[in-house]
């Protein structure tokens, strides 16, 4: 009896690992299946092309499994997935960001992946970014998705280490060249500086917004001062900033690890990576949000489609494809084993990226974060356009976030 119990316990502990992996035999047995695959990766960063390469390679291995890949902007992907789920026509697979975990789990439209994959092989910090209510809701493809300072060595030999040095660059660039560009329309580019001024968007409980604070006011004033001193353009969205940097009309850009591949192609050896400058007033490093890119599975995915999707995810997050992703897109892998590859340890760009990630902060995944993003965006725009003071904007964004969280109840 004891022997039987012992054997049963061994099998039970191994079973999740054994059951978690889909085998080649399982995939070969899948009938003709078309997977509708939505990804946030775009063409400009060469990432969509890489996603399609992966689906093509997988389809060559398993001709019965084909993919229809569609690129959607991050916010559009969230809205469309919610709408499609409501209509009963959700896609079969998502490649998206971790802060979608909150809204998707609240609406109960994705499924946990704990029992579907061997999670031990993935980077713990990446898994933590998609863990909510004790369950894991996504498989990490890349680890990071964080902002950093990228610079053109032909325009600036040594990037500024502090905000004082950054502000001192005013008027020092050649005519028609900006010292710095960034996406001035999204609060994702505001939060690193908020961290630098020692502020956070949530209180210690992780769900109460703390936006009307001195650090937020200081952050908004600082961003406005960058504009007033012509360190950054008067108006610039993502594409504008990206284009200015690629065309050599901006010495530095604050952008994410998803853009490294494209900038490496554009600037070659002139591309440098550094930390976003330390805030002189507080002595703290800006803390960009870190997370990564993740696969998420719709709630009702089952049968052959689930098997096919699991096989594809295992393929993409296998060591070979992870190292290929590092080589092509310069993103840190979600697979632990791939982190030790020489490609990462010897690449100065990836080294710089890791160095920035070290002082980053995990992006909150709670649904209340949605309320914070929506509250910060218009107020940031108002301060930058000079139509509101930083103090009024901070107060208004706090009110807006609280009201939004109340409406979520």
């Amino acid at each position: 009896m004891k022997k039987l119990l012992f054997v049963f316990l061994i099998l039970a502990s191994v079973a999740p690992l054994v059951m978690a992996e889909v085998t080649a035999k399982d995939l070969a047995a899948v009938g003709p299946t078309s997977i509708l695959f939505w990804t946030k990766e775009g063409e400009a960063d060469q990432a969509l092309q890489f996603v399609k390469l992966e689906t093509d390679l997988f389809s060559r291995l398993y001709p019965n499994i084909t993919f229809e890949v569609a690129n959607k902007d991050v916010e559009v992907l969230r809205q469309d997935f919610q709408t499609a789920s409501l209509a009963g026509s959700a896609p079969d697979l998502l490649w998206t960001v971790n802060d979608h975990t909150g809204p998707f789990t609240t609406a109960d439209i994705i499924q946990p992946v704990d029992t579907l994959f061997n999670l031990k092989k993935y980077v713990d910090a990446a898994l933590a970014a998609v863990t909510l209510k004790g369950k894991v809701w996504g498989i990490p493809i890349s680890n990071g998705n964080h902002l950093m300072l990228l610079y053109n060595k032909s325009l600036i030999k040594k990037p500024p280490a502090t905000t004082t040095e950054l502000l001192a660059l005013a008027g020092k660039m050649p005519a028609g060249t900006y010292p710095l560009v960034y996406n001035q329309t999204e609060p994702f580019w505001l939060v690193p500086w908020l961290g630098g001024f020692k502020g956070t968007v949530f209180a210690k409980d992780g769900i109460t917004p703390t936006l009307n604070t001195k650090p937020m006011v200081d952050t908004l004033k600082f961003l406005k001062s960058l504009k007033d001193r012509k360190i950054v353009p008067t108006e610039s969205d993502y594409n504008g900033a990206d284009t200015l940097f690629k065309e050599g009309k901006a010495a530095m850009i604050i952008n994410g690890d998803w853009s490294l591949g494209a900038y490496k192609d554009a600037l070659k050896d002139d591309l440098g990576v550094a930390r976003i400058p330390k805030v002189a007033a507080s002595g703290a490093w800006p803390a960009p949000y870190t997370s990564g890119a993740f696969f998420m599975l719709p709630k009702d995915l089952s049968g052959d489609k689930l098997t096919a999707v699991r096989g594809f995810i295992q393929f993409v997050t296998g060591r070979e494809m992870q190292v290929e992703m590092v080589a092509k897109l310069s993103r840190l892998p979600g697979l632990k084993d791939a982190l030790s590859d020489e490609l990462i340890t010897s690449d100065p760009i990836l080294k710089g990226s890791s160095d920035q990630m070290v002082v980053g902060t995990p992006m909150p995944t709670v649904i209340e974060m949605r309320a914070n993003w929506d509250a910060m965006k218009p107020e940031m725009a108002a301060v930058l356009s000079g139509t509101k003071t930083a103090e009024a904007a901070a107060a208004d964004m706090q009110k807006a976030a609280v009201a939004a969280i109340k409406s979520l109840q």
Partner: protein
Amino acid sequence: MQSLTSQIITNSLGQVGLTVLALVAGVVLIELLVYLAAGKIFHAKNALVYMLLAPAVIGLALLIVYPIVLELRLAFSNMSLRRFKNPDYGLAQGLDNFKLIFTEPVLKQVMFFPVFLRTILWTGIQVVFHVTLGLGLALLLNRKLLLKGLYKVLLVIPWAIPQVIACLTWRGEFHFEYGFVNILLKAVGIPGVQWKSDPFWNFVAMNITNIWLGVPFMMVICLGALQSIAKEYYEAAKMDGATGWRKLRSISLPLMAPILTPAVILGVIWTFNNFNVPYFINENHLETSDILVTALFRAAFEYNRYGFSAAFAIVIFLILFIFSAFYIRFTGALKSVRG
């Protein structure tokens, strides 16, 4: 981007062709069934009429009536992200939604009435410019003119371009660094304008875009109306010594009224409900540029307030319905139709 290959063209035509075939087959089947039922079973006199109307009636029922009924149901629910699959339905939820529209911000900060007034301002500006410029261009074209055909083609181009494409193009042209508008301004010594982040200039950008898009339609309507006026009226007026302005005021405008009035009503309704221009030009999601329909869209799909947004849609419908009923009654525009 993948280039257009013959394989892609063949696949696309195949998919579209199959859909069209399925639709045609469906329509034929419906007509056959209706004709057989009406003619052979119920022995109705107008079986042919029912047969011909059936596909349209079914289409309208599925595409308009059914969604409106669903919308009404949703308006009386508390559907949101937390109550996504199993919202509560009832009179209490509905009344709560309608109350919230007028007592709480419809977006993050902006209340209903400022958005409503902004929508009226937007509609008023658009209709005035559309009618004025459209009539002006029609008057210029309603005469002997060299290359008149070419001018008509060029002036109608904005109407021919798909609206979303036009909005996205204009949005690009309002870019601070690379847009032709600021490039032109800077060329004449005027500093660039923050079209996307400044609330006032973003509203101006929306208006410029929609005026460009909307004038051709009104021009074509006015031109048609002008050409339908018998030349004898103008000849008689000329003999009486009437000036151009007198002819316009006493002949052209009164005789154009039966055609212009429905066009203006349509213009008001389309502009009031215009989603594409305010949504796409307002790239930075400024609440100061939102009109009622864009605020409704954001409330539903960005802020996940589905029940609230459904009630909001009904409020917008009622506003337009009351306006249309009042306008038609006040102007007597359909008197001649009623006979």
